[in-house]
C-alpha cells in the first residue's frame, strides 16, 4: 500500500487548498524555519486519528485550524485528506484507492469519512488495523524521540515494543 496524496485546507499554516503527491522511496521536504514542514507531518498523523492535541503542539484540537495572520482572518474549519493506493490489497475494502478524510470545527468536533462516506474514527482504525498504518509511534520519528527512546525511564520504549508486538 502506498501513500499517494496529501490534501490540506485550513490546517495550521495552510489556509488555502494544497496538494502534495508522494511516490515510492524517499521524499524530502525542505524549507526555512517555521515555513510549515512539521505541520505537514502533523497533518498526516492527525488525519490518521491522532487524538492528543499536545502531540500536535496545541492546547486543544481547535488549535490545528488556521488562526489567521496579520493579513488574513482565522477560519472556521480544518480539513485533511490522505489518499492511499490499495496495491497488494492489504486493505479489507474492495477499492483501489482509499481516501481518509478528517475535518474539525472550532467547536472541537471532528468528522471522519472513508472514500467520502461519513464514518467514525473506529472505522478508520479498523480499516488500517494490522496494515502497519496508524498510530505507530515508531513510524514518525522526530528530534525528541532520542531522549524518550533512551531515557532511564523505560516507559516509552515499552510502549513502542507493545505496539510492534
Amino acid at each position, binding site marked *: 500500500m*502506498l*501513500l499517494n496524496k496529501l490534501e490540506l485546507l485550513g490546517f*495550521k*499554516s*495552510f*489556509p*488555502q487548498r*494544497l496538494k*502534495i503527491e*508522494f*511516490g*515510492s*522511496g*524517499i*521524499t*524530502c*521536504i*525542505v*524549507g*526555512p524555519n*517555521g*515555513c*510549515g*514542514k*512539521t*505541520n*505537514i*507531518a502533523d497533518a*498526516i498523523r492527525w488525519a490518521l486519528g491522532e487524538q492528543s492535541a499536545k502531540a500536535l503542539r496545541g492546547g486543544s484540537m481547535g488549535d490545528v485550524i488556521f488562526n*489567521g*495572520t*496579520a*493579513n*488574513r482572518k482565522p477560519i472556521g474549519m480544518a480539513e485533511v485528506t490522505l489518499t*492511499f493506493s490499495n496495491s497488494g490489497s*492489504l486493505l479489507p475494502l474492495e477499492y483501489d484507492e482509499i481516501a481518509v478524510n478528517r475535518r474539525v470545527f472550532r467547536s472541537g468536533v471532528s468528522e471522519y469519512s472513508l472514500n467520502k462516506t461519513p464514518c467514525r474514527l473506529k472505522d478508520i482504525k479498523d480499516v488500517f488495523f494490522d*496494515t*502497519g*498504518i496508524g498510530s*505507530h509511534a*515508531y*513510524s*514518525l*520519528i*522526530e*528530534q525528541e*524521540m*532520542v*531522549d524518550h*527512546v*533512551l531515557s*532511564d525511564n*523505560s516507559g516509552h*520504549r*515499552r510502549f*513502542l*515494543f507493545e*505496539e*510492534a*508486538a
Partner: protein
Amino acid sequence: ASTLFLETFNSVQQKFRETFKTLFEGGDAELRLLGEDPLEGEIEVVARPRGKSLQSLNLLSGGERALTAIALLFAIYLVKPSPFCILDEVDAPLDDANIHRFLGMLKTFNKKTQFIVITHNKRTMEAADYLYGITMQEPGVSKVVSVRLTDAGEPEEVVEEAVA
C-alpha cells in the same frame, strides 16, 4: 500476550544489534529485559561504540545518542514495518560521516517503504527521490513548490517558464 511480546522483543533485539553495527561501523549494542515478568520488566538499552569502553548511555555524545535511538527505532521498524515513515530532522545532531551511514541505511529499505524526510541538510536532500520545498512568501501562509538542487547542492525553486 507474554509470548508474543517475548518474540517481538527477541526479533527487535537481533535487528538492533545489526542496525547499530551498521550505523556505528562496529561496536556492540543490546537490549535487556530486566526482572521476571516480560510484561512488566524494564527494557534496558546498552550501547558501546567501537573501541570505546562500555558506559552508561548518558555519557555518550549527542550524536551517538541520536544514532543509537535511530538504530533502535529502525530495528522496531524492520520487525513491524509501516508503509511509510516520517523522519523529522533526525539528522540535525549528526556529523557528515554519520549522515552518510544513516542515508545508506535508508536506501537499503526496499522501495516499498516510503520515507518522508524533513531536513535542512544538503546531503540528505541529495539522497531524495523527490524534493518538495515549503515556503512562506506571504508571512504565516505555507505554500508548496517543486525544488531541485543546484550544482552547489543548494535547494532552489523550480520555476516553470511560461512558454511564450
